Structure formats: structure tokens, C-alpha cells
């Protein structure tokens, strides 16, 4: 580990020198103005498209709102009281957590595995990287529609299985398999992005550190576990948080593939929110569900963020 620390310290020193050289003579006030100018569009976006709408969501959650009949009545915390005793909401939250947990495990482990496989200097390796990344740029709706046909009861997957004597399940209509099937489809859709992030992180691992580990007698697995993994933990943290947030918000594959069924086995919280607002016209209660989703996602993000000091390299 001392080798790692030395390299990091050297990188930090180099960065510090570069900073002084590029900005040393500019007045601090001008720097602040330029900085503000750069961040202003983002600030306007965050306020206009994030904070203000979120304020509205909280406001709506305090009302009974059915736009079809023109009802908008102050109800205080009634929607949150109703939320607390609504088994459908808590069941949906559990489904969301199951979806998120399974997706994170599969996505991150597969992305890391693919990144390691593709982190080679081989002829044509770029083609393979592009192949695995391509689903990321495909329209999500198109992607899940095609998979919908493949996993239909009489679709391509079961057709292929039947040729080897396996009677495949009704993937999207069997309560046991539906959630897993949607997770797998979603993993294949998004794994390419995480793979690229891991690939960049792996290529940023200084080869001399791995070489030093080998000279010290470490085998391939030990080198990977004790040198490579610690150095890419910042990327693992980033990927974990981003993947978790995306999974908590999942909507399109549920809407297109299962409509929340069979039963409520794939009714994740964002889909329940959609059903409550746009199908049942209960916008106030849907807003309360939205607040719940925000709080849970924020809490999980903070847990991950706070845990970084225990396992992320170079975090103190």
C-alpha cells in the first residue's frame, strides 16, 4: 500500500503545481465572476427544473387534487397519513428495493467482469467494446419492446429452450420470474455505461503498482484484490450511487413489459406513482408517494456516501 500512497501523493503534487501555474495572476473577484457565469446555467436549471418543481410536489402532496373534476382541496398531512397505512405503497417500496438490489448486484458485477475482459490490448478489442456499449445508445422503449417479444411465452427465448427440451417459464407473466426478467433486461441495457466507467478506471491503475505487487510475490488474484480493486473504489462508489438512483426511478421497462403485473409483483414505486396520478387522477396522493420516493432515494444515497470513508480509496 505504501506504493499506492506514494503515487497518489505525486499526482496530487503535480495537480497543485498545475493549478498555480494556470490561475496565479488573475484577481480573485474576476475568478469568482467567471466561475458564477459558468455555473449560472446549471444553477438556473437546478432551481427551475429541480427545486421549484419539488416545492410544488410538496405543496400538491398537502392537497386532494383531481384535475378531471377540478378538485384541489387542502388536506394537510392526510396524504402522508394515508401513505403510512397503505399496504400497496409499502409492498411497492419493497418491490422497488428488491429490483434495485438485484439490478445493482448484477449490473456492477457484470460491468466489472466485462471491463476486465475488455481491458486487453488485442486486435479488434474496440469492436467488442462497442458491441457491449451499443445497448446504451439504443432507445429504451425499442430495447424493451424487442425483449418483450423475445421473452413472450411463445417467444424466441422459450423457442430456443424448447429445442434442448426445456419448457421455459412465462417470463413476464409468472410472478416468480417477472421482476427478475425485467431486471436482466435492464441490466443488459445499462451495463455498457458502467463497463466503460470501469474500463477507464482500470486503465488508470498505474502498471508499475501491479508490477511491484508481482515482484513482491502476489499472484493475479491477489494483485487484483489488493491493488486494482482498491484503486478503482472511487469509480465503484460513483457507479453504485448512479445505478442505485436510476434503479429506484425505473419506469419504462415496467410500463412497456408488465404494466406492474402480474398482480403487483413488478409495481415499483415510480410506476405506482404514475398509476396513482395519471390513471387514477389522484395527483395529491401521487405527490406524497413522490416525496416518499425522494426521501428513500436520498437516504440510500447518503448511506452510500457516508460509507465511503470505510472502503473507498483516498477518502478520509
Amino acid at each position, binding site marked *: 500500500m505504501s506504493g499506492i500512497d506514494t503515487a497518489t501523493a505525486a499526482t496530487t503534487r503535480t495537480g497543485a503545481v498545475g493549478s498555480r501555474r494556470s490561475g496565479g495572476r488573475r484577481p480573485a*473577484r474576476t475568478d469568482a465572476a467567471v466561475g*458564477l457565469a459558468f455555473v449560472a446555467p446549471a*444553477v438556473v436549471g437546478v432551481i427551475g427544473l429541480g427545486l421549484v418543481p419539488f416545492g410544488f410536489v410538496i405543496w400538491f402532496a398537502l392537497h386532494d387534487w383531481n384535475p*378531471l*373534476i377540478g378538485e384541489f382541496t387542502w388536506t394537510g398531512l392526510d396524504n402522508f397519513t394515508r401513505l403510512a397505512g397503505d399496504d400497496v405503497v409499502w409492498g411497492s417500496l419493497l418491490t422497488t428495493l428488491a429490483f434495485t438490489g438485484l439490478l445493482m448486484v448484477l449490473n456492477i458485477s457484470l460491468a466489472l467482469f466485462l471491463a476486465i475482459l475488455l481491458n486487453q490490448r488485442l486486435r479488434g478489442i474496440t469492436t467488442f467494446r462497442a458491441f457491449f456499449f451499443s445497448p446504451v445508445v439504443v432507445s429504451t422503449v425499442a430495447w424493451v419492446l424487442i425483449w418483450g417479444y423475445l421473452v*413472450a*411465452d*411463445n417467444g424466441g427465448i422459450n423457442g430456443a429452450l424448447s429445442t434442448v427440451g426445456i419448457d421455459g417459464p412465462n417470463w413476464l407473466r409468472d410472478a416468480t420470474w417477472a421482476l427478475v426478467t425485467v431486471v436482466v433486461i435492464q441490466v443488459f441495457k445499462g451495463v455498457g455505461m458502467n463497463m466503460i466507467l470501469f474500463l477507464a478506471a482500470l486503465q488508470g491503475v498505474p502498471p508499475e503498482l501491479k508490477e511491484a505487487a508481482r515482484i513482491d510475490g502476489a499472484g493475479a488474484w491477489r494483485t487484483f484484490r489488493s491493488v486494482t480493486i482498491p484503486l478503482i473504489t472511487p469509480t465503484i462508489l460513483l457507479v453504485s450511487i448512479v445505478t442505485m438512483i436510476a434503479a429506484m426511478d425505473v419506469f419504462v421497462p415496467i410500463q412497456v413489459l408488465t404494466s406492474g*403485473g402480474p398482480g403487483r409483483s413488478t409495481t415499483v414505486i415510480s410506476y405506482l406513482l404514475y398509476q396513482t396520478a395519471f*390513471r387514477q387522477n389522484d395527483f395529491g396522493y401521487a405527490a406524497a408517494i413522490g416525496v416518499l420516493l425522494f426521501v428513500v432515494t436520498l437516504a440510500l444515497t447518503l448511506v452510500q456516501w457516508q460509507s465511503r470513508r470505510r472502503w473507498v480509496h483516498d477518502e478520509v
Partner: protein
Amino acid sequence: MRLTLRSRSPRAVAVATAGAVAVVLTACSGDDAEQAAGGPVELRMTTWSGNDAHHAIFQEIADAYVDQHPDEVSGVEFDAITDGTYVSAITTQIAGGDSPDLIWVTESYADEFVSSGVLADVAPVFADAEGYDAGDLAPNAMDLWTDGDATYAYPFSTSPFGIYANLDLVTAAGQPNPRDLIAAGEWTWDRLAGVAAATVAAQGVAGIQLSVDDPYALPNDAIMPIGLAWDARPWSEDGTTCQYTSPETVGFLEWYHERVYQDRAFPAVGEAVDFASGQAAFRMGQLSLSAGLGDTFAWDFLPLPDGPAGTVPVIGQAGVGVVANGENPEAAADFLAFFTSPENAARLAEFFPPPRESLLDAATLQAAAPSLTPDQLQGTVIDQALAARTKVGHPRLSQMADTIRAGLDAMWTPDADVEAVLADLCAQIEPTLAE
């Protein structure tokens, strides 16, 4: 020019930014100025049709109206929402204060839209419109859209369901021609299911495809209409009592379940089927389906079979009404009377079977379905249209639709206890029905 932003207090920055956002947002709201000044208004009608030919006729009718009323209406926009989220999109527009002036509504949501006050009463406008002839509107077609003397929409598409048969598949399976069954008085759902099951077994195709691609996602629209021939209903006539557990409804759904899982007469849940490509023996559908069939196989279009409750024709309807809280309800109602006048109803009949009895003849409907014979149009469309019932709706269908779908999902396994599933479903929706 020199940038002179200074790092002031966070509050000043927040106020300045909020001001900028407000300026940007309010800059988008200047379109109403002309209308506020009393000039002609522009109307907007939402539809779920993306068919260019439909829109061409709509636009021709609208242009003629604008020519006649240049001081009242400057134009009519037909806003197509075709991605399956139609009702949600309308609700969102209404919630966002951007109500359309006129909307299309399916029969499933008729009760809800009528009872909630979304739609304006257009009966007085129809009565005052010269030559409108409201008495020509078939009473059964208007049933869903009227309440006492009030009329809340015009059911511009009133299209009976029938059964399309792939005669090549049925004949190849050694089964009788459905026309022979009709002639022999044996055209029943039981007999049809038997023919379908035998064709499935012999030809390795699907049996009876229902009217929508995924009937199990829309059981109230796709499966329960068959049950009307059993007198099966999801709830009582007054909508306050669950009737999924009535003997008729349990009997129908047990029959349907057996036909799916014992002899495969109907496709199972999750099974992709396409009648038009020759993958199914039969399909329940409306006359518009005939346009996509071609002549790759011999087919026929037949009336719905009888059930234990006798002959119960079913129509699918789409109505067009005026949004009561829209910006221009009076102008919209006047345009609606023009849009659905006898002359324009005849033009719309090129695509949509009309509710006007004077237009329900084979010659008029031939334009909508040129591949159907006069006999098919008379027997399957016209005769049924005049006697048909609509699917069962409810004023709070939106609140219950997802619960019903989720509750019935438990039935779509081979070993499901149908009666228990239906009892559980009633327990879930009864509180909403009782509201």
C-alpha cells in the same frame, strides 16, 4: 464588455436567479393576448388517431367551418396522441391548465367523463343547429353519452364487434365453416371455442385472438365484453355492488379459464398472436380490422356468437365532446354541431361507423371497409349496431382499473381457483364501488 458579477449574499443570488426563471417562464405565456382581446379563437381537438387520411377529412371539415365563421374561429388544430397514454395525456393537460377544447373519449371512460363534469352539455347546441336532426341518432348508441335531456358527446364511431375467421385454417383442420353453424343455429361461444380448439390442435396456431393485443392487461375492455353473452357483469347496474362473484360472472370466467388452459381455444397470458399474419384461427374485432387483412388467406367476418344469455351484440364506441372548463366551450360546441352534422357525419363514415340510423346502410359503410361484402356489413355491422350494448363502464373506473387488472392476474395460471380470485377482487374494489 466586462463581466461585473459580484459575489454577493446567497439570498441575492437566489432572488436574482428566481427572477430570471420567472422571466423565462412568463415569456412563454403571451399567446392568449389575441383571444383575450375578443378576436377569433383557435380550437384544439385531441384524438388518438395518427391516420393521415382521418386528419385530412377532419381538416377539410374544419376549414369549411372556419370559412363560414371567420369572426369566431380562426382555425382548428387536431392534436394526435397516439402512444397509448391518451387519457393520461388529457388529464395532464387539464391539470396543467392547458385543456383541449374538444376531446375524444372511449366508451370505457364515458361514465367517468360524463359524471365528473369534464364534458359540457351540448344538447341545446345540437337542438339549435339547423338541419342537425338529433332524432336520427340511434338511442342505443347515445345511451352512454346522455343523462336525461343532456348530451355530453357525439359517438362518432359506433362499431360493433364481430368475429373474423381464417377459413383456410378452419377448413384445413376439418372444422365446419362458421356460416354453416350460423345457418344451423349452432353459432355459440361454446361451439366457436370448440372449432378454435380443434384448429389449434390440428394446425398448431392460436385459437381466438381477442380485440386488443394484450387482453390480460385490459380485461374490462377485452374479456368482459364476451361475458355479456353470459349476463356477466363486473358490478351492478347502479355501480355500487361488486358482481364478479355473481353466478353468471363466475360461470363465464370459469368457462373462459377452462378454454384457455384446457383446450387453448384462447391464447394464454403473455402469448403473442397475430391473426392478420395467419397465426390465429379467429379474431374478435371491428370492421376497421378488415383493412389490414388482404387476401393472403380466405376470411369471413361474422356476428358475435350466442351465449347462455342469448344474443348480445357489443359495440365499441368513441365519442367526441366539449371540455366544459376549456377556454372556448361555446365555440367548441358550435364547431362540434357542424363537425357531426348529417352531411359531415356521412363524410366521417368513410372511416367511422356513424351513430346516425340514416347512414347505417351497406353502401355508406362500404367506404369504411371496402373488403367487406354487403352481407357481412349488413349482418355483422348494421344489424348488430342497432341492437348492441356497450362495454360496462363506471364513474370511478380509473380508480379501479389497475386493481382489477392486478386482481384478475391471479386467475391466469392453469391451477387458479377462479371463484377465490374473484372473491378477493370484490373485496378489493368494494370500498371504491361503495363511495
